[in-house]
Each structure stands twice: as C-alpha cells, then as structure tokens.
C-alpha cells in the first residue's frame, strides 16, 4: 500500500515537471523527447504498480514495455 502512495507522488511530480518544462524550457530542443520519455515512464508505472502487472507473466510485461517504448520512439522521430 505504501508503495502505491510513493508511485502516486512520483506521478504527480512528473506531471508538475512536464508542465513546468512547457513554461520555462519551451525552446529546449530535447523537450519533446523528454516529455515522451516521462510519459512512457508514467505509462509503465501505472501499468506495473496500479494495474499490478508486476505480478503477471513476463510476456505481458514485454508487450507493454515494447508497445510504450515503440510508440514513444515513433512519436519522437515523427515530431
């Protein structure tokens, strides 16, 4: 239970960080990659800890990691 609270705090901090980056670092060339990186990290944190995929078969974990990583990479490359 304590771990879920920690994950929630981490998620809130990343949302705040992304919003702050949009305001204060808008001209930074690596912003899109950083935003997608944080988004993929949040995606995996929700899937593994909130959805409890940590306890699932490794195939399901691999599918989720591959999907989010691939989509994040495609978005960055197509930006």
């Amino acid at each position, binding site marked *: 239970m304590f771990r879920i609270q920690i994950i929630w705090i981490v*998620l809130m901090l990343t949302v705040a960080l992304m919003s702050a980056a949009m305001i204060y670092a808008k001209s930074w060339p690596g912003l899109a990659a950083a935003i997608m990186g944080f988004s993929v990290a949040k995606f995996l944190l929700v899937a593994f800890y909130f*959805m409890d995929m940590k306890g699932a078969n490794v195939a399901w974990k691999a599918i989720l990691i591959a*999907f989010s990583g691939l989509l994040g990479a495609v978005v960055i490359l197509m930006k």
Partner: protein
Amino acid sequence: MNVSDTAVDNSALPGQKSFYYPPGGLLMWIVILLELFTFGIAIVIFMYSGRQEPEVFHSSAARLDVMMGSVNTVVLLTSGYYMARAVEFYRTGRKLFKTQLLLTLLAGLLFIILKSVEYTHKIGQGLTLGSNTFFDFYWMLTGFHLIHVLTGMVILLWWMYTAHKRPRETALSHLETGAAFWHLCDLIWLLLFPVLYLIY
C-alpha cells in the same frame, strides 16, 4: 468463457506466472491491448498529419489549455490511485474499500466536468470538429477517451450495486476486471496528453 474465470489460474510452474493471468483477466487484457493499439495507430496517424501540416498543428496546439490538461492528468491519475487502493482494500478485507471506490468515481466525475468545461470553451472559440485537421483529431481522440471514462464509471457503479449478491471471490475478480478497464483510461490519457497538448 467468463472474464472472471480467466483470473483464477496463477501458477503454471512454481515461481512462474501463468500466461492466462494478467490482473483483471485474459479477456479484459485482450480488450486493453486492442484499445491501446487502436489509440496507438491513431496517434501515429496524428503525428503523420502533423508532418504534413506543421503550421496548422503548431498554431492549433497553442490554443489548447496546458494547465487544464495537466489538472485533468492529475485528477485521472489520482482516480487510478484510489482505484488501486480500492482493489487492495477489498482483497485484504478492509471496510474502507467503498470509500476508495467512491473517491475513484468522484475523481472520474471531476475529470468529466473539467473536460466538459474545456469542450465548452473550445466550442465558444469556434474550434469544433471540422475546424482543421488538428481539432478533428483532438475531438475524436479526447471524445473516445471520454466515452471510455464514462463506461468505466458505469462498470464500477454496476459492481457496487451487484457485488454483495455474489460470492466474495467472484466479486473480487469482477472488481479487478473493472479496475483494469479504469486504469486503461489512465494509460490512454497518458499517451494522448503529451501528444495533443505538449509536444507541438
């Protein structure tokens, strides 16, 4: 095959989880993967369109309210947090699980209210479906996501109404399935928010 039936077997070999046990059940996870792939393909097409019309996408994205999108993200992630707590509380027999579930629903309702405010604002500005390619995607993607949130709320309300009529194990399995669908809404939004609001 019942969705809940798939969530029982969790021991293929000692120390190895069965492929047929993702939390929430196999059938729900097939739905989740199909949904994720569908939204994923839509996002790739959105990005491709952005390369065709970079000026339109840049100026349109600038008209979205990043702060409102961030608040919506916080609200939805908080609802996911309460959902995870509700499942854990029910699993361990704690009475406060109903409070957690109600907080989940309240956060879901707040998300819908905030989204409605944002939609009203956009309609007031004349930024509707058909305004340009960016806003076509904006309305379609966020609209379908909103339908998923509404569906998730109906599933959870149905569970609250019927859980006491079922054996505890079945009710737990159904709650895990509903929770998996609810978290799907989180996952989809975590992909939509940066792509629509932030990276252009």
